[in-house]
């Protein structure tokens, strides 16, 4: 117990806690007294510094006042006061106009040659924060003087300040290379570090110079651990950028593994792990070093080691195997970040023989960990199921245990998704998974999950050897559960009736009992299905029960909402054909209110399974807001174009840090293309007028409309449009684009725009129309193979080509990405180690009235193992379109 403990009771107020900014600003008058009272002034400065670090904000004027007043304190000879004054000036200079802060320049320059080191070191630090390009050349010689100062404090301060100055005036700083080189031989460790870093940064655009510098430094004997870490990074950079085979760089890194300082040996270990061409010997030593850290008493070392090994396990799991045992001990580490990393690493490096044991070990401590952590475990387990399909039984049982235990909806949803993904990948697991899930819905507390499981049972159950046992579970729900679940159960049963002829009669009897259900939805569904069964209307039944919705659920929801709001409901029926089929994948800038969308019931399963199967986890931008379709239909010029058929992803036409940031989206209508350019003006002192993109096509075409942006203010993005008429054709055109606009300068002090203006233009990236633009992804064709047979064989188009890709999996992703079509029959899932594969895709064409287009790609790794041979076939009702897709896509 220390003697201050008693005072720290909650009742007691802490010093400064109720400090008021206005009051402190008043107190700054002590700076102005004729006889400077150092003690009082120091106290007031401390108050100001505290206010800043507490988070109080000062206006430009307030900050300038404080700064001005503080410059008076240069008259005092009190050293501690001067030290605080430097800090005050440094902090306040960042919140006021740079021009005003220059008034301290002469005092600071004077201090830079003062006899007291502390003055020299700190005055240069402040000066470099406020100085501009022009003044810098005038004080250059003083800075150079400080860089070679014998005193480490001064030299370090000058070097670090110069590193910051590289942002202001790189050309000036580059002229000091000789002085920096000289300071590298300073006795101080820190000066070495700062000199090395500055020298490296001065030369960073000259690869040869960097290589020479690093080679020289490797041979010198650096003492500073920070400098050694920096040099390791530099060596890695040289190896990666030049691809050098010179072992000197590798040898240096390896030698650092044995450094006594943990910071350095760790840096070396993680460098070796990250390098592609590390030798086995180096990798073994690096892993050995990290292995020692794993059992360190310091949490940070354990953390650093396990994080690095985790990364290594992704690319080279075998190298990490020696750490297996140490890693297992970390599963129960007090620090949850460490434990999580240990588990995910272990699951990555696990092999067929120890997976079972590992799962058992994890089960043992499952009760002690929170839901967030459990989700991480569930996700790793899912990945494992793909690696070791034979272990599905243990995995399903393990996942099911998590599902049954107490837990949040989020955890259970992730777990259910994981089970669905296992079922999707490993058909053998279906039966055991369904049985477990049947048990689970007997007492499932979340109706969302019950509904999804009932959907799955209806989808998969009828195809199992003994479908009738599932009916019992489903029917139990009807007698015991809430309306939503009963309705889902009715639908699920109906599927059994449709898909399994023998069960049809039994199902009809069961559904009949639901006709008097108290819930409307249950009664309606039961009545509808029963009637269709009686009529033997299998076509409509399968459309209702098996096919996905004709458009994404979210779009239907929005359209329905609009329909109800518009008041058209009384006069006209809702037409689902008008719903956009565009899957929104990117958040749209808009002020529309965010409406939380509930999980669409039927869609959830196919959504979850398809996204996990595709293997890409790009979150679909569900940030609600007006969709492209609504936005465009509100523009009179485009309203007549009809329904929006497809929107491309966002294409960046500039770097994101340029003066004007432009991106483009291509919108396809029947007969028209609309290019939407989103333009952002990042220059505070400019107002842009009449902003539009001048598109220059490489063929002669006629543009329909240009819609410019009238006024584009700073940081307020807006859209301009170009429309193009294509009728029924599918032109492939390249466009050179120029952003054109009028500039009005804005006076920064008044914020008013200048009366005169001038024309300006700005080159932006090209845009191309590609076959993918003419294909709508849509929902995957439910029965691809049948539909493929039905389409005419004689007009199909076949292309053979070779892709420079090594793995089938990558090739599948590349083909799907290039065509923008929807993979069918789960053919986007490539079995591990496959050397050939067939990918099926479906889509619809923008022209030709949404004609169905199917594509098949047969792939095989060629003899060299470096390329993949592809036979690509396209089928539709239109011979020309087949040829177009097959020949122009790749």
């Amino acid at each position, binding site marked *: 117990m220390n003697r201050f403990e008693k005072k720290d009771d909650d009742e007691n107020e802490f010093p400064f806690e109720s400090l008021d900014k206005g009051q402190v600003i008043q107190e700054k008058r002590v700076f102005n007294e004729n006889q400077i009272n150092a003690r009082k002034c120091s106290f007031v400065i401390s108050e100001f510094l505290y206010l800043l670090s507490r988070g109080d904000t000062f206006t430009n004027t307030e900050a300038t006042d404080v700064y001005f007043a503080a410059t008076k304190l240069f008259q005092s000879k009190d050293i501690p006061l001067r030290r605080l004054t430097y800090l005050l000036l440094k902090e306040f200079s960042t919140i006021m106009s740079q021009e005003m802060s220059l008034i301290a320049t002469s005092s600071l320059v004077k201090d830079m040659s003062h006899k007291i080191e502390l003055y020299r070191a700190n005055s240069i630090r402040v000066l470099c924060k406020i100085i501009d390009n022009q003044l810098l050349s005038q004080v250059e010689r003083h800075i150079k003087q400080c860089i070679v100062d014998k005193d480490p404090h001064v030299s370090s301060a000058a070097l670090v300040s110069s590193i910051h100055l590289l942002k202001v005036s790189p050309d000036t700083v580059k002229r000091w290379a000789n002085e920096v080189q000289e300071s590298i031989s300073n006795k101080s460790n*820190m000066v070495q570090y700062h000199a090395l870093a500055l020298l490296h940064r001065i030369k960073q655009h000259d690869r040869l110079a960097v290589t020479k510098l690093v080679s020289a430094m490797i041979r010198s004997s650096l003492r500073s651990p920070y400098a050694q870490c920096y040099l390791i990074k530099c060596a890695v950079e040289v190896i990666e950028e030049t691809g050098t085979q010179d072992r000197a760089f590798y040898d240096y890194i390896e030698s650092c593994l044995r450094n006594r300082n943990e910071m350095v040996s760790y840096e070396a270990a993680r460098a070796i792990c990250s390098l592609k061409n590390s030798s086995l010997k180096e990798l073994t030593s690096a892993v050995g070093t990290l292995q020692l850290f794993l059992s360190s008493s310091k949490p940070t070392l354990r953390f650093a080691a396990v994080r690095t090994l985790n990364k290594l396990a992704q690319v080279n799991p075998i190298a990490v195997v020696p750490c297996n045992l140490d890693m297992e001990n970390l599963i129960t580490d007090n620090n949850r970040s460490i434990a999580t990393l240990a588990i995910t690493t272990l699951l990555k490096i696990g092999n067929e023989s120890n997976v079972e044991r590992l799962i058992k070990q994890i089960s043992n401590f499952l009760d002690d960990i929170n839901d967030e952590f459990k989700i991480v475990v569930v996700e790793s387990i899912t990945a494992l199921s793909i690696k070791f399909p034979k272990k599905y039984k243990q995995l399903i049982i393990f996942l099911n245990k998590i599902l049954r235990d107490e837990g949040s909806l989020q955890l259970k949803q992730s777990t259910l998704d994981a089970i669905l993904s296992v079922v999707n990948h490993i058909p053998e697991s279906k039966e055991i998974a369904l049985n477990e899930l049947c048990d689970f819905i007997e007492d499932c507390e979340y109706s969302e999950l019950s509904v999804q499981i009932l959907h799955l049972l209806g989808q998969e159950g009828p195809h199992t050897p003994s479908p009738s046992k599932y009916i019992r579970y489903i029917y139990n729900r009807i007698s015991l559960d809430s309306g939503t679940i009963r309705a889902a159960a009715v639908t699920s049963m109906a599927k059994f009736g449709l898909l399994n002829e023998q069960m049809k009669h039994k199902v009809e009897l069961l559904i009949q009992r639901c006709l008097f259900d108290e819930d409307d939805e249950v009664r309606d569904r039961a009545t509808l299905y029963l009637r269709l069964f009686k009529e033997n209307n299998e076509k409509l039944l399968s459309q209702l029960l098996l096919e996905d919705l004709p458009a994404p659920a979210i779009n239907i929801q929005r359209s329905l909402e609009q329909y109800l709001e518009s008041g058209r409901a009384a006069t006209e029926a809702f037409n689902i054909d008008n719903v956009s089929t565009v899957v929104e994948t990117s958040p749209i800038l808009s002020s529309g209110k965010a409406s939380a969308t509930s999980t669409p019931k039927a869609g959830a399963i196919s959504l979850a399974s398809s996204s996990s199967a595709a293997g890409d986890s790009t979150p679909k931008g569900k940030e609600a807001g007006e969709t492209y379709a609504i936005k465009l239909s509100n523009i009179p010029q485009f309203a007549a174009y009809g329904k929006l058929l497809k929107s491309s992803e966002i294409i960046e036409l500039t770097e994101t840090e340029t003066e004007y940031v432009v991106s483009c989206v291509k919108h396809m209508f029947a007969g028209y293309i609309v290019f939407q350019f989103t333009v952002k003006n990042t220059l505070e002192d400019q107002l842009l007028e009449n902003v539009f993109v001048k598109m220059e096509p490489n063929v002669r075409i006629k543009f329909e409309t240009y819609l410019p942006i009238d006024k584009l203010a700073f940081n307020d993005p807006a859209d301009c449009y170009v429309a193009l008429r294509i009728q029924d054709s599918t032109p492939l055109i390249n466009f050179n684009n120029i952003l054109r606009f009028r500039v009005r300068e804005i006076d920064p002090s008044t914020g008013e725009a200048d009366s005169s203006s001038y024309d300006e233009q700005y080159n932006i990236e090209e845009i191309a129309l590609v076959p993918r633009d003419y294909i709508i992804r849509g929902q995957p064709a439910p029965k691809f193979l049948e539909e493929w047979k039905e389409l005419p064989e004689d007009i199909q188009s076949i292309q053979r080509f070779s892709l420079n890709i090594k793995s089938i999996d990558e090739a599948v992703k590349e083909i799907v990405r290039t065509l923008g079509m929807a993979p069918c029959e789960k053919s986007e899932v490539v079995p591990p180690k496959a050397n050939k594969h067939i990918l099926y895709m479906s889509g619809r064409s923008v022209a030709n009235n949404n004609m169905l287009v199917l594509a098949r790609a047969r792939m095989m790794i060629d003899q060299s193992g470096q390329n993949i041979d592809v036979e690509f076939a396209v089928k539709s009702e239109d011979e020309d379109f087949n040829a177009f897709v097959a020949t122009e896509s790749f």
Partner: protein
Amino acid sequence: MASYIYLVKFFFILDNKGSRVVAKYYDDSEFDTTVKQKAFEKRVFDKTAKVNGEISILDSFTIVYRTYSNVTIYMVADNEQNEVALLNVLNTYTDTLHTILDSNINKRNLLEGVNFTLLALDEILDDGIVLESDSTIISDRVGIKIDGGDDLDSLDQSLGQVMASAREQLVNFLK
């Protein structure tokens, strides 16, 4: 690589209820207002308060921290940085405070000597770059011994520290 020299992104001290005592953001591209900063600090506190750890991850940041009687001191870097190096900076800072505050790191002492609290930080980090790593040198620079008779409430160096710094100087001299 280019930004590797800028090691520390944020520094803050929170009390045992998670409220900010002092903070310094060297890079405010992620959290450009006090409100955003404090919201982040709250999340960091929630993640680290109950756990007696030393290191954690949140979003894309690595966080090292050390808890004292009623305050926790945090250093935050982006997750590509060397965790051990980041911990070294924290160690330098806490070692310095130990010396200056006579081993009594708590909210009251940090605030009463807020000039030392902030000066020590300023001596260790310059815009996120490590300026000095030796806590003895830093303690000397912060607790400036003054000549003359001004009655400033400065730190009285204990005999031990005087010895330590004398030894340091001797060692440096012998190098």
